């Protein structure tokens, strides 16, 4: 990023000049003595069969300021869990792997379930939530950083830049989200470019100035999966288990902390990970499902903030969104032309049409049952219902990793 523009209400930390990784890591080593840090990695076993994870592990081997890695492993058999452990054993500091499909973790889920709480369906949200639980149970660190395991262009500078603002006590932020561009020979990140930003701005037109919408609009890449936060935040946050995870996390941060203590940081010049298909005709998979879940989350948060929704509101919203999305396409086309990138206007227009359908579907879900929330309860809530649950989780993980 070449500018130094500050967006509305949160702090934006840019990549300016030629920052030296060695200096960042040296300082991080000092700061993490006072504020030790855990890196949480939600992963599926299939990711261990891809190349991206090898590059990530090679980079993480060189990191000296992370106290422990907690890898929350999903969809893995016992043998696959053992193979993942072997794979991670190359890392020279503490690594704990949460075996989500293992009998002990399943029993933890069953315990939560039979006490009238629900940890949600299998997915990144639940994996991350469980990992936070373990970090709090172990009580060894004050800061949690999280990123995905499918980043092809991973470098340890990403991690250093991501956690620096939270770990450095002089900056004093409680939550830091990464941002980056996703460009190859074309621009990616359709959901952020063509759904979230136009949708938020269309909502701002209808609702008027709203703090949450301004907060959300301040993020350059609200769907970025990389963030760092203080451990206390994991204690009170309720996160969605569906694709609304990223927006849901932001809404909880907004609810619990002042935006002055929230920042976003430019972590990479370019970022490459797996791309999802649009799946325009099937709202149960691909980007369509993601779009429905994200729209639902935004609507639900606004409803909780006192915004009144109706059929007519949503009709106006769809029209307003469509206009703004079309305007946005024109802007991106110009951007692509200037930079010599491929820009398939037809594909982008098809995506916008699919997103209109997604907004409609999300609105119908909200109007039918506004209380149907896919939120995983906070660990604070779970611990008050089952006082020994964190000890239980810790025992399960420690025993699995013995």
């Amino acid at each position, binding site marked *: 990023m070449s500018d130094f523009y500050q967006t509305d209400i949160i702090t934006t930390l840019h990549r300016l000049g030629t920052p030296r990784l060695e200096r960042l890591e040296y300082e991080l080593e000092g700061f993490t003595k006072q504020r030790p840090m855990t890196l949480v990695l939600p992963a599926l076993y299939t990711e261990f069969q891809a190349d991206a994870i090898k590059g990530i592990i090679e980079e993480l081997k060189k990191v000296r300021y992370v106290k422990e890695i907690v890898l929350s492993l999903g969809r893995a058999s016992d043998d696959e869990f053992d193979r993942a452990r072997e794979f991670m054993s190359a890392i020279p500091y503490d690594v704990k792997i949460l075996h989500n499909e293992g009998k*002990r973790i399943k029993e933890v889920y069953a*315990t939560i379930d*039979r006490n009238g709480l629900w940890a949600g369906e299998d997915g990144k949200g639940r994996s991350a939530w469980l990992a936070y639980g373990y970090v709090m149970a172990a009580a060894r660190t004050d800061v949690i950083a999280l990123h995905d395991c499918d980043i092809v262009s991973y470098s340890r500078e990403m991690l250093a830049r991501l956690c620096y603002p939270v770990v450095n006590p002089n900056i004093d932020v409680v939550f830091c989200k990464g941002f980056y561009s996703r460009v190859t020979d074309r621009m990616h990140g359709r959901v952020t470019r063509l759904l979230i930003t136009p949708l938020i701005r269309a909502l701002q037109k209808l609702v008027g100035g709203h703090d949450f919408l301004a907060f959300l609009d301040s993020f350059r890449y609200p769907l970025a999966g990389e963030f760092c936060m203080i451990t206390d935040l994991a204690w009170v946050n309720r996160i969605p288990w569906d694709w609304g995870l990223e927006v849901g996390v932001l809404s909880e941060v907004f609810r619990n902390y002042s935006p002055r203590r929230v920042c976003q940081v430019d972590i990479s010049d370019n970022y490459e990970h797996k791309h999802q298909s649009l799946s325009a005709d099937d709202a149960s998979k691909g980007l369509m499902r993601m779009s429905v879940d994200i729209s639902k989350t935004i609507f639900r948060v606004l409803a909780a903030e006192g915004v009144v929704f109706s059929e007519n509101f949503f009709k106006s919203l769809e029209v307003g969104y469509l206009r703004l999305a079309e305007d946005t396409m024109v802007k991106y086309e110009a951007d692509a032309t200037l930079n010599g990138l491929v820009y398939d206007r037809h594909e982008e227009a098809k995506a916008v049409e699919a997103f209109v359908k997604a907004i409609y579907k999300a609105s119908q879900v909200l109007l039918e049952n506004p209380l149907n929330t896919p939120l995983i309860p906070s660990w604070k809530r779970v611990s008050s219902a089952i006082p020994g649950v964190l000890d239980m989780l810790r025992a399960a993980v420690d025993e699995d990793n013995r």
Partner: protein
Amino acid sequence: MENFFELLWQPFRDFWAGLVGFIPNFLAMLIIIAAGFFVAWVVKAVLSKAFSALSFDAWCDRAGLTAMARKANVWSKPSDIMLKVVYWFLAVVFAMIGLTALRLQAIDSLTMQFFTYLPRAFSALLILIIGYVITGFVSRAVLIAAVNAGYRYAKLLAEAVRMLLIVLILAMALEQLQVAPGIVVAAFSIIFGGIVISLAIAFGAGGIEAARKVIEKSSEEKKESDRDIEHL
């Protein structure tokens, strides 16, 4: 010669007579044991329904009993553990009763010992359960009181109290089970006494100055009150 053959046959006849006399006893034992397993199965089925209706597992979760079992690396549901315990307890009791049907002196005395030991085992179990609940309550109360008093090592103090109470309760349970009672009582006395003496020395040595100040202050107050003018 006839006597000789008689001598040869007699042990076989005796054996046969003994066997014929023993078979009804053996059958009775088998029937009692089989009945025991059946009764255990019925009780298990009834208890399973009752536990489910009473949300026994959720109660154990909230009481911290599940977490305690997990720490001991037991990962079955609390109700399943309980059902297994009840099932095998009843099976063993019936097996012991069944064994008495054999009318063998050695087994009769073993059975007698088993039944006389049962109340002790039951008492020890009760001591452990009640003790665990009390330990949790007291250590929590100590933690809250110490935190409210601004004591820096509140968690450490609460943990120390908890450990002390666990030692006390384990000693009581072992004493009840008559497992090396002399050693248990002696070990407990040494550990408990040692802790109390250590604390007394630590507070005594560390608190000399504070104690002197308290005593001096009270004696000065007394002198002051002696000097007070009494008005008629």
